[in-house]
């Protein structure tokens, strides 16, 4: 075989290798099967995910919308509320979930029974949960203030009449609703830690806090970070809790970007402005997503 012929054969072989690599290493009939099984999913994804997202982005593309948004005196307030809601809600929730997951590692029967009660708020649908919380806070017939009157003879505060107590109520309701889910995640993470690591730590004389600091925490740190980032993304888009607990009130002082978007879209009747309101969160959400994707492709754990 001449050199040219050898080169041609080599080129074809390389092309074939590149083609197989592009096709995920599939050959011939395997490729056809893959297409056959992927096509319906791709069609559904394009129709029900890609198209609505692109349409939404198109709705909110005009710079004039952002000018109107920034002119609204409530917008800056809403951004501050969102930062507080996400910052405090996510961090307090993740920290508590992390701690409580340690408690639920215990084997006693009453701990397991308590666990079932603990996850109930998460298991219930979000809307009745948030509504229940709203009713608990009512100054006239709500449980909290009536308990205060019954036990101590004092009239409780009107929780939803002040911006800060209303915002605090939204944060507490959100933590109460979603903490069980993250507790379960951390519990699963703890259960995946090999016992022989703890036995080795025992041999080295590490107990209590030192076991936590040198075994548990390093092994769960990555999980904690990823969960925190995921939770941040979810919380930025949370609408149900704020809408049904405080309603964004009093006087729209506890609106977050998600509720502002819904209000602009369906109360003011301008869906394009609602999309624009939510899109102003993208400069925060996109970097988090990128960082999350990079983090998911790492890393070793150093004990």
């Amino acid at each position, binding site marked *: 075989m001449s050199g040219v012929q050898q080169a041609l054969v080599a080129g074809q072989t390389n092309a074939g290798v590149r083609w197989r690599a592009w096709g995920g290493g599939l050959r011939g009939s395997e490729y056809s099967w893959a297409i056959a099984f992927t096509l*319906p999913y791709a069609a559904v994804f394009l*129709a029900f995910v890609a198209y609505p997202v692109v349409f939404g982005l198109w709705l909110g593309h005009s710079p004039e919308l952002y000018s109107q948004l920034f002119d609204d005196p409530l917008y800056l307030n809403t951004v501050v509320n969102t930062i507080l809601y996400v910052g405090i809600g996510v961090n307090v929730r993740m920290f508590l979930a992390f701690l409580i997951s340690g408690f639920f590692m215990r084997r006693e029967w009453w701990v397991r029974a308590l666990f079932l009660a603990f996850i109930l708020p998460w298991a219930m649908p979000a809307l009745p949960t948030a509504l229940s919380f709203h009713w608990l806070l009512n100054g006239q017939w709500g449980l909290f203030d009536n308990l205060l009157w019954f036990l101590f003879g004092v009239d409780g505060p009107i929780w939803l009449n002040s911006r800060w107590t209303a915002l605090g109520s939204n944060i507490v309701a959100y933590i109460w609703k979603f903490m069980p889910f993250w507790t379960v995640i951390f519990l699963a993470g703890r259960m995946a830690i090999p016992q022989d690591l703890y036995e080795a730590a025992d041999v080295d004389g590490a107990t209590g806090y030192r076991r936590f600091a040198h075994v548990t925490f390093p092994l769960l740190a990555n999980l904690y970070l990823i969960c925190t980032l995921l939770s941040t993304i979810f919380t930025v888009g949370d609408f149900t809790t704020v809408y049904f607990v405080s309603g964004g*009130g*009093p*006087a729209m002082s506890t609106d977050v970007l998600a509720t502002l978007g819904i209000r602009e879209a*369906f*109360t*003011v009747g301008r869906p394009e402005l609602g999309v624009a309101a939510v899109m102003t969160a993208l400069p925060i959400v996109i970097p988090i997503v990128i960082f999350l994707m990079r983090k998911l492709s790492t890393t070793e754990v150093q004990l």
Partner: protein
Amino acid sequence: MVRMSRRSVLTSSVGLTVAGLARPHIANAQAKTASVWVNQGFVPQEDAAFKKLAADYMKESGNTLDYSIMPFQAQNQKTIAALASGDVPDLVFMDAPGTILPQNAWNNKIVDVSDVVQPYEHLLTDTAKLASTFYDKTLRKRSYFLCPIKQGATPFHVWGDLVEKAGFKISDVPNTWNARWDFFKPMQKILRAKGMRKIYALGLEVETVGPNDGNNLYIHTMIANGGVGIVTSDGKLHTDDPKVREAAIKTVEYLSTAFKEGFVPPEALSWNDADDNNGFHERLFLVDFDGTISTELAMYSNKDAYNKMVTLGMPHGNDGKPVPCQVNAGGGFIPKGAKNVTVAKDLMKYWMQPKVMGENLKAGLGRWAPAITQIVKDDPWWLDKSDEHRSTYIREAVLEPTTAVFTGYTPAWGQVEAEQILQQSTADVVKNGMTATAAVDKMFKRANDIFARFTFE
């Protein structure tokens, strides 16, 4: 066992994909079928009345109505989404289309229904006509975009038995705006001394969460203080009118003072649409001012409670002169892009017939007043004094002075109301320590910014 070949799976997969994305073909069904979205009534009788009307129409016309009855908020969201996406039903029937209709008529997204309304124009009330016409900026003309069927007014709702328990008489209720509210204030202390620990005198809807009650109360208080000219039928805002400014300041002063003096439940600032109704039914307060007689009809099956309530019409203004009650119009509108405009218009022509309109609204327990005055005069049921709630309400909505809601004049007012800036001015005094003058100035500035976006040329 069936052997699946690669070819058969691939064929099936492609077939499944195409079938899933394709639209179903119904031969000739579009020619005579109209999709209709109807908002759910407050009482089941309203829905039953619509279903009967639909069945009668389908029998008479041979057309088919593919209708969905849905709660108001859900219908609002669906309709807005449909108009944004272009995938619209043939007819939307709404009790209060104030958020959607003015704006979308402005943007040329609603079908002109003048050909449906004009044959009945001489029968309709002036306010029904005004509340059904909107300005189309593309065509530069005002036209009928709503086929009006019903009108809604706002009466006072009072627990008559509690008034008596406090040692007062309903017959002594004053007939001027502020004095009427003030009449109930001393009863709060008396009733609390009698064991009703959490009762308040006034259910003033100073809410800022929306959608309508807070705006409704604010505007009527302004009207009672001489501020009815804040928006005129040419769509202009008159915040520079000293009379309007004075009325707004007096409104904010009265509402905020009543709140600060403790005559209003503190929660009222955060009430949503249902909370004031719930509060009234819980006997949290003695009196409120709320649209239609839904408050009473919610207790229709509980005759004891129904009879304890008292419905009062509009009092005079604070200057002692009669003032109009603001009245909206509910009915059907047809989005552009509807596939069967012919059937949709045919249905509305059928529904607007006085006999059909009257029977339909009567079957709904008279929660809504007819858009045609003669119906009320011809059928003694509407003004039958054996039901004081209905007769008072109908008299207020149809026979006494009324004025149309401002959303018919300009979509800008719809946005003003949607942003809840009216009652925000009250909240600014109560929560943020502003003076009434400063709060009104802030509110007027925002209103002017909104109005500046809607220019009639």
